[in-house]
């Protein structure tokens, strides 16, 4: 029985990476595995690294481009996300994000700036991205920019948690910027997670704390990673139908699922879907907590009520 898991954190991917492990004497081994996975996804899928694979892919002018196994799987995951959400979470939002001002690493993004000329233009759509598993190649049409920001972190969280558990045979929880996956044996009362708007909120802050025993838990929000242009508030969750930041009735969505990727994709889709989100989440039997822009809280499915 795990009593108090060992904890370590570091900064990567523009956010905080946290690792909880059931045994303190294997913590460094686990951290090394996690750091390797994080570095690998950064080199493969960062839109802001000139040497990343995805930048090369986006510049391939429509040619078939061989990619690494990691990027190929990450793109397949992003296409799965698009399909299962009926296009609410679409990897072809790269240009829309750039036109909305998110054109560099968020830490370097100027908080406010002059007005932008943007128009309601649907993104190209995930269906234009083609994959070929035989030679592990991907084709992105000219002018289309894919961005894996909505899925890549959750994808690598699942990967890292599974790898650490497999390598060390220990219970582990991995969090990258609040996207969480747990693998292996959990503490007796579960892994304790504070559910909040901003992952930077210290976990011992007052609020709604839940316990999970495995799988994934992820939160998407329009209140974090925001900027203004011409006085207009912008955020990073793009509605593919408009190519603009989603104008949602929800400010935050937290979802539990079998994996972090499932949870994260569902949480982002819930923001985009707006009022239709509770019924949609219910259809998939996904426990979820939605917080409206007016502060109202809607628990979906088997998501627990907050303890007094």
């Amino acid at each position, binding site marked *: 029985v795990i009593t108090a898991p060992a904890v370590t954190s570091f900064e990567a991917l523009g956010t905080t990476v946290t690792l909880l492990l059931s045994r303190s004497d294997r913590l460094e081994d686990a951290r090394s595995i996690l750091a390797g996975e994080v570095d690998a996804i950064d080199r493969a899928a960062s839109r802001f690294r000139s040497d990343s694979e995805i930048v090369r892919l986006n510049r391939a002018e429509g040619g078939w481009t061989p990619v690494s196994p990691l990027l190929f799987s990450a793109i397949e995951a992003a296409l799965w996300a698009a*399909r299962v959400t009926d296009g609410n979470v679409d990897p072809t939002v790269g240009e829309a994000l750039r036109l909305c001002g998110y054109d560099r690493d968020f830490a370097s993004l100027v908080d406010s700036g002059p007005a932008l000329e943007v128009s309601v233009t649907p993104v190209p759509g995930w269906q234009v991205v083609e994959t070929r598993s035989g030679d592990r190649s991907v084709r992105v049409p000219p002018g289309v920019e894919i961005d894996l920001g909505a899925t890549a972190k959750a994808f690598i969280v699942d*990967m890292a948690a599974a790898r650490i558990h497999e390598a060390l045979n220990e219970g582990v929880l991995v*969090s990258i910027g609040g996207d969480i996956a747990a693998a292996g044996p959990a503490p007796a009362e*579960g892994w*304790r997670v504070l559910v909040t708007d901003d*992952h930077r909120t210290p976990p011992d802050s007052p609020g709604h*704390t839940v316990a999970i*025993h495995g799988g994934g838990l992820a939160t998407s929000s329009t209140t974090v990673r925001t900027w203004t242009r011409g006085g207009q508030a912008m955020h990073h969750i793009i509605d593919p139908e408009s190519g603009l930041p989603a104008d949602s009735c929800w400010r935050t969505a937290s979802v539990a699922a079998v994996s972090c990727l499932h949870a994260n994709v569902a949480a982002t889709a819930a923001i985009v879907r707006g009022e239709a989100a509770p019924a949609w989440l219910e259809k998939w039997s996904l*426990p979820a907590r939605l917080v409206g822009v007016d502060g109202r809280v809607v628990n979906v499915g088997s998501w627990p009520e907050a303890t007094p």
Partner: protein
Amino acid sequence: MTGPSPARRDAGLRTLSSATRWMVAGAVALTGVFAGVAAHFVPGRSSSQPSATGQTPAASTSGGGSSPSPSYGSNGGDNAGSNYSSGSGFQPPSQAPSAVSGSGSVSSGAT
């Protein structure tokens, strides 16, 4: 001048009908052959690329507490398969979150 006898006319019509059936069958067969050749030689969307929407919810098949993990060879291997090409939908956790009192060990919030 006299026309063909009814018997000869019927025989001609039968021959024509039979020939038409063979032509239709041949056209269908050739269409299939051409489609197969085109599918083999012309690059297109992968069979792993999902195309359908409106999937029905999948029942939870998670047996334990571990996440399903897509596989890849990050260290140079060539296993590019993933769990995301099978057309599956969302899966709920094997155990729903439970509310607990006191502080957390980690925070789930947006980045």
